[in-house]
């Protein structure tokens, strides 16, 4: 197994550095990747709560058919900012910035990222961007949805819309800088004893994610800059009456935003590939298949964006091409799901909170993926386009597929980050409430969509009222599900059971250091002697796999 070799004769001498960070270090421009990771996670979670409150407000409005809680403008502003915050300020920063920064150097045996100061800079672009987005409410709030399609975005709430654009460009810059850092770090900073085929799958996923972000984000920036000019400087890139064309915006936008779904899901897949083998006590099934399928998703994912534009007057040959390429992406995704199920199969599964969320993710992602395949097929898409079927689909993928994974990651690595265990009973309560809430909220939306309820409306036909009421009740269950989680985090951080260095018996390198890790991660860099997923192989040599945490 991977061990740190501790030379007994080398005393630790770091006079100018404290052994651990103090609480206030988390509020400064700190260049340590672990601090930055936690900064990202906490900031993103705060945005999640804000975005969640907006969702609850929208669902309250939608409980009845008429508009009596939010006026339509406010509904639009909430709808726009909810989607924007959830994607750009919660899932992406938490998964990539948070877990990526915290885990990648620890998993590859490095002392920090390749460019620590750049890393801190990338994080500190986030809070001002978020503030800018929220400040747009003072100017009425952007109204045009998270996609901000012109001409709607060029004629409504122009100041707020410009603030929205600048906020997105800021987080985009942050994400590009972060990607540069991840690519160079993973590429060059692995501990010398680690072979590429010993690289943890989370790191493979981060590599693919970073490549994808690096290539797609700037294209969105280009599209948004043109939009900014159209709104503020009288140009007409997207104005058909003056020689422009709105579909160009859609191409530039979806060239980023389709890959963005993989930006959200690939790191989560990485988390899954770490959590499942540890808690199933089995080697991961198909290491190479999972690693390569990440890269395959990254490549094919760049060529499917037009499936969002089947109803934008796309010529039939393009519909054909992009339907097929979309269905192809389902293959590497299916490979991963198959691998996880095969890993679970016959494993000595520990059903703790982390594992529950991981299995919850599997079940919900399969459903979301299936509705995704139906949507990727042009004929079905044309039927349910812009109905609640779409809303149901992307919430299954984003909530079931991303948020569940982030929770699984938090339950799994919290002991490493804080040195303390989360309370399992609260964790299971959290899981049960979240699982019920998610299905109650989003499952009925498929039905709403097939029956024809349009999305992005504050008022709707009374025939949809009963189903909407169920969705709203579900949303409240979801809102309450946060409470046990928050109590758990705050209580356990201070008073939870001491975790020890390796509470789960994990084999990847992050478990070889202390919990929480030293400022420099290791006193002496670890030497890799075994793959990260070789669970149970010891058994043949006579020892059991449970007592593998014999670190210093």
């Amino acid at each position: 197994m991977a061990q740190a070799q501790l030379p007994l004769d080398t005393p630790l001498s770091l006079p100018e550095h404290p052994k651990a960070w103090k609480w206030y270090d988390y509020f400064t421009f700190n260049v340590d990747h672990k601090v930055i990771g936690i900064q990202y996670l906490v900031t993103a979670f705060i945005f999640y709560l804000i975005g969640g409150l907006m969702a609850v407000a929208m669902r309250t409005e939608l409980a009845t058919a008429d508009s009596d809680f939010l006026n339509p403008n406010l509904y639009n502003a909430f709808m726009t900012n909810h989607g924007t915050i959830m994607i750009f300020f919660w899932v992406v920063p938490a998964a990539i910035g948070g877990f990526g920064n915290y885990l990648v150097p620890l998993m590859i045996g490095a002392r920090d990222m390749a460019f620590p100061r750049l890393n801190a800079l990338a994080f500190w672009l986030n809070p001002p961007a978020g503030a800018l987005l929220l400040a747009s409410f003072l100017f009425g709030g952007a109204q045009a949805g998270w996609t901000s399609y012109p001409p709607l975005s060029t004629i409504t709430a122009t100041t707020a819309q410009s603030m929205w654009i600048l906020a997105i460009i800021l987080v985009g810059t942050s994400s590009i800088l972060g990607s540069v850092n991840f690519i160079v770090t993973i590429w060059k900073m692995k501990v010398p004893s680690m072979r590429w085929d010993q690289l943890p799958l989370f790191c493979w996923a981060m590599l693919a994610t970073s490549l994808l972000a690096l290539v797609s984000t700037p294209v969105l920036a280009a599209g948004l800059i043109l939009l900014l000019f159209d709104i503020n400087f009288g140009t007409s890139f997207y104005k058909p009456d003056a020689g422009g064309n709105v579909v160009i915006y859609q191409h530039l936008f979806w060239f980023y935003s389709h890959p963005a779904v993989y930006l959200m899901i690939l790191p989560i897949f990485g988390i899954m590939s770490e959590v499942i083998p540890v808690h199933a006590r089995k080697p991961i099934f198909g290491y190479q298949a999972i690693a390569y399928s990440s890269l395959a998703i990254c490549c094919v994912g760049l060529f499917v964006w037009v499936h969002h534009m089947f109803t934008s007057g796309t010529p039939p040959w393009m519909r054909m091409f992009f339907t097929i390429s979309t269905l192809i992406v389902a293959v590497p995704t299916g490979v991963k799901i198959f691998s996880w199920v095969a890993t679970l199969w016959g494993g000595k599964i520990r059903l703790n909170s982390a594992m529950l969320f991981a299995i919850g993710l599997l079940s919900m992602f399969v459903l979301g993926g299936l509705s995704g395949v139906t949507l990727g097929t042009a004929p079905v898409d044309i039927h349910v386009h812009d109905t609640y079927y779409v809303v149901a689909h992307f919430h299954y993928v984003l909530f079931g597929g991303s948020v569940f994974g982030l929770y699984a990651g938090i339950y799994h690595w919290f002991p490493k980050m804080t040195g303390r265990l989360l309370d399992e009973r609260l964790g299971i309560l959290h899981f049960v409430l979240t699982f019920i809430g998610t299905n109650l909220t989003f499952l009925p939306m498929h039905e709403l969509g097939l029956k024809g309820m349009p999305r992005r409306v504050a008022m709707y036909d009374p025939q949809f009222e009963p189903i909407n009421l169920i969705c709203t009740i579900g949303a409240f269950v979801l809102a309450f599900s946060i409470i046990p989680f928050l109590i758990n985090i705050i209580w356990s951080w201070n008073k939870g059971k001491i975790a020890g260095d390796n509470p789960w018996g994990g084999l990847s390198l992050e478990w070889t250091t202390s919990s929480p890790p030293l400022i420099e991660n290791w006193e002496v860099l670890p030497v890799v002697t075994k793959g990260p997923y070789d669970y149970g192989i010891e058994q043949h040599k006579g020892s059991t796999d449970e007592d593998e945490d014999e670190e210093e």
Partner: protein
Amino acid sequence: MQGTVDSQATAIAVDHAHEHPDFRVLGLLVFLISESLMFGGLFAAYLLLRGMNEQWPPEGTEVELLVPTINTIILISSSFVIHYGDVAIKKDDVRGMRQWYWITAAMGAVFLGGQVYEYLTLGYGLRTNVFANCFYVMTGFHGLHVFVGILLILGVIWRSRRPGHYNAHKHTGVAMAEIYWHFVDVIWIILFTLLYILTRF
């Protein structure tokens, strides 16, 4: 600045405490992939607009060639000039490097001056039509990059005042400024082809 906050006296850690100049160059190269795609997005938008409009550029927008051609020649030759600076520093010749870098910066400034002159004399403005939109946004954006490049070069010159800051073995900053400058140059060649040459046919 690379890799670690601090270092330790162990065989493996020493390796980490070392400067990794190649990382910064690598980082820049990776970053430039991203930059190219931002320009790529603008180019794509331009080509789509071109394909969708009957007449390109629309009537009344006369594309001048003289000043931009001179400008192009200046910018392309500056890529050779800056390279001599890099060659000089590799021979430990800091003064030579400074000289070549000064000349590059000056050529960049002339390029920007030429662009401003062009803007003032063109006879159409940002809002005239969708071609003019593209023209000003794309060249303006590129001009911004030239400006940043000049700042990088001046930064290198400024830092080279300290004796021994750059030498034959330590010249990552010099190399990075050069790479960035070449990048700006390559983008310009594509831009020039799209905006000036292709509008003639």
